[in-house]
């Protein structure tokens, strides 16, 4: 119990609303230095939680082997609360994977694999637009709308905001515990990914803008007209 008092108080503050997080309060190196206060068991649990919560984008489609691996990894997590948090995250991921999988040609419900309590339900309600889960997940209608419109960036934002609030609620209800630490690190991961993608988007915008400006600059226009005059 007492081991987390120092660690929790040395973690910086992350805003309550994800959109207000405009910069990371500390680097990954500084965060890791502070997380070195965790014992090896908690460290391993944190690594598993991070890997499951922030999966590699290439490995998001669940299959039989991956689902079995997830089940094994979740069972190893150091707390039941964390197991529930990660399970809910993977269930939402399963739902999103089902929406994507259904769009592919020549797919059927029997071949869909997912994690969590809704997998069988999804197979049974494969023809329903949102697998008849709207009542269980109030935000699903909005997510489905964004998905169908192809607004993947906005969909990701909405989902991240949902996960952020969920993690914050767990952090608030567990003071000075491993749950507080893990949920903070998972929120930090969301913030890092968002800020990184924002930075990439900003860089792409800048590149586009600079290219446009260079192509339409006064010098370029003058050079173009000069070449045209010479050619005449």
């Amino acid at each position: 119990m007492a081991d987390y008092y120092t660690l929790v108080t040395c973690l910086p503050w992350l805003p309550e609303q994800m959109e207000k997080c405009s910069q990371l309060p500390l680097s990954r190196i500084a965060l890791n230095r502070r997380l070195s206060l965790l014992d090896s068991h908690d460290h391993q649990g944190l690594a598993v939680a991070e890997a499951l919560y922030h999966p590699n984008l290439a490995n998001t489609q669940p299959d039989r082997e991956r689902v079995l691996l997830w089940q094994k990894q979740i069972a190893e997590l150091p707390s039941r609360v964390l197991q529930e948090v990660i399970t809910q995250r993977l269930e939402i991921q399963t739902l999103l994977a089902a929406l994507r999988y259904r769009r592919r040609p020549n797919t059927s419900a029997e071949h869909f694999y997912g994690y969590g309590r809704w997998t069988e339900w999804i197979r049974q309600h494969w023809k329903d637009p949102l697998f008849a889960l709207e009542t269980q997940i109030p935000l699903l209608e909005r997510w489905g709308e964004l998905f169908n419109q192809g607004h993947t960036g906005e969909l990701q934002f909405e989902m991240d905001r949902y996960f952020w609030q969920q993690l914050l609620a767990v952090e608030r209800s567990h003071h000075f515990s491993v749950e507080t630490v893990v949920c903070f690190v998972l929120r930090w991961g969301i913030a890092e990914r968002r800020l990184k993608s924002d930075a990439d988007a900003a860089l792409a915008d800048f590149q586009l803008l600079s290219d446009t400006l260079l192509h339409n600059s006064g010098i370029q226009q003058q050079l173009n007209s000069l070449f045209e005059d010479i050619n005449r």
Partner: protein
Amino acid sequence: MALGWAGLYGPMALGAIGSMIGCSLAGQAAAGALLETETGHGRYIGISAMPSSQSIYGIVVMFALSREITPENAPGLAGIGLLCGLALMFSAIYQGRSCASAINVSKIRPEIFGMSLAPAAIVEGFAVFAFIFALVISAGVPA
């Protein structure tokens, strides 16, 4: 007779155990906050010493109960001493947790430092109740 001796030393020992745990919890929180903040270090260390008052109350109750132990007064000493000691011990532990929470929130928003200490002060109030009424009741124990 043994219970009488336990009752005599109980407030002191249990109060000290509570203070150790409480100060340790608040002290660990203060140590973490030192890493995260640039100023106000002194007050974090100051808060972490708050649960030490229960040891002092325990010492006073021990002196108030101090008398020759006889079969007649041993049950009374045991009842007052051990129950007062338990109250002091738990109040010190929970005060330490309250102090740790106060440190954690006031590092984020220093302006609520005073308000964040209110729960710890309320816990202290209950320790004072246990202390005062142990002194009052001890007057009725046969010498």
